[in-house]
């Protein structure tokens, strides 16, 4: 069954790191069609050279995020009917990241910043130790739980105006993961995490504009996680004073 507008006018960004332009395709409109369906239709039936990225198609893998009519979205879970302006769609690669080709953004800077933020596990035990007890009701665990469902889709990174203006800024996703690890009793990297997020590109650059929280497709709240990091870095200074 088709919708009222039988055909979608879809502008797709084509190009590479050297530059590019929008190219328009006419795509048959269908009921319950997702933006990823539209991109796939173009690649399968109109232009097989179109490059884009996806894997799971069900909102778990975080690989299909693109700009849709100027807004960063997970395309596999975004219905065309909810975001089309009239019968037109504009699909571009994620903002704030270099482009590899067409709709595939280069995710390297995004993931490099996760490592830079010490958003990596710092083990405290070995396989020979008993399984660590995690108190699900503790405040720290609940703070960690609030952020661990991140699928690394980089929608928040593309939405963030601070990233747009400040290339060194680590960004919401990396900082949120640093925050969840800081609150994880099994992670032994607390001090190095706080050091890593206190540098020139760290959490203190956040202006709390909230685009990350606004656009996160999993409805996470990186802005509050970053606020938590700011609070903990300040607390650490006063704790040091008291201990001295």
């Amino acid at each position, binding site marked *: 069954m088709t919708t009222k507008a039988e055909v979608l006018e879809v502008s797709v960004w084509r190009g590479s790191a050297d530059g590019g332009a929008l190219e328009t395709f006419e795509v048959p409109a269908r009921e319950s069609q997702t933006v990823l369906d539209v991109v796939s239709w173009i690649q399968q039936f109109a232009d097989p050279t179109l490059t884009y990225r996806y894997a799971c198609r069900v909102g778990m893998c975080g690989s299909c995020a693109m700009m849709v009519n100027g807004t960063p979205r997970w395309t596999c879970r975004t219905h065309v009917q909810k975001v089309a302006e009239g019968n037109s769609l504009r699909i571009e690669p994620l903002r704030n990241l270099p482009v590899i080709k067409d709709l595939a953004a280069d995710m390297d800077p995004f993931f490099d910043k996760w490592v830079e933020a010490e958003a990596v596990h710092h083990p405290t035990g070995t396989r020979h130790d008993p399984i660590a007890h995690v108190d699900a009701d503790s405040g720290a665990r609940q703070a960690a739980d609030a952020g661990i469902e991140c699928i690394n889709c980089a929608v928040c990174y593309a939405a963030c105006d*601070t990233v747009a*203006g*400040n290339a*060194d*800024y680590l960004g919401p996703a990396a900082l949120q993961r640093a925050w969840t690890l800081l609150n994880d009793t099994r992670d032994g990297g607390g001090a190095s995490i706080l050091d890593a997020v*206190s*540098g*020139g*590109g*760290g959490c*203190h*650059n956040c202006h709390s504009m909230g685009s990350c929280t606004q656009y996160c497709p999993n409805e996470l709240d990186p802005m509050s996680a970053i606020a938590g990091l*700011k609070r903990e*870095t*300040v607390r650490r*200074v006063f704790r040091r004073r008291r201990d001295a």
Partner: protein
Amino acid sequence: MLDFRLYMAQRLTALIMAPLVLGHIAVMIYAIQGGLSSAEILGRTQGSLFWLLFYGLFVLAVSIHAAIGIRVIVHEWAGLKGAALSALTWATGLGLLAMGARAVWAVTAA
């Protein structure tokens, strides 16, 4: 660009400025309500250690706070970075401090 040290300097100077701003506004309203002349105001501020410290601290806090704020705006909106950005930060801070200190001295020196 805005590390922990600068972040703390800006937050702490904001804490200092908050009561000083309220005090400053209260004094302005009081001076106008009472119809004080410039000469009468200068008569009260000249030679006053209190007003020297009040506005001296205010000017110092503003210089630090504003220089860091300008630094952030210029970096994000104009792309200035590195040594040039640091130079602009220092120039803004020292410039405000010099102008402010001169004004404070002008009304409090005996």
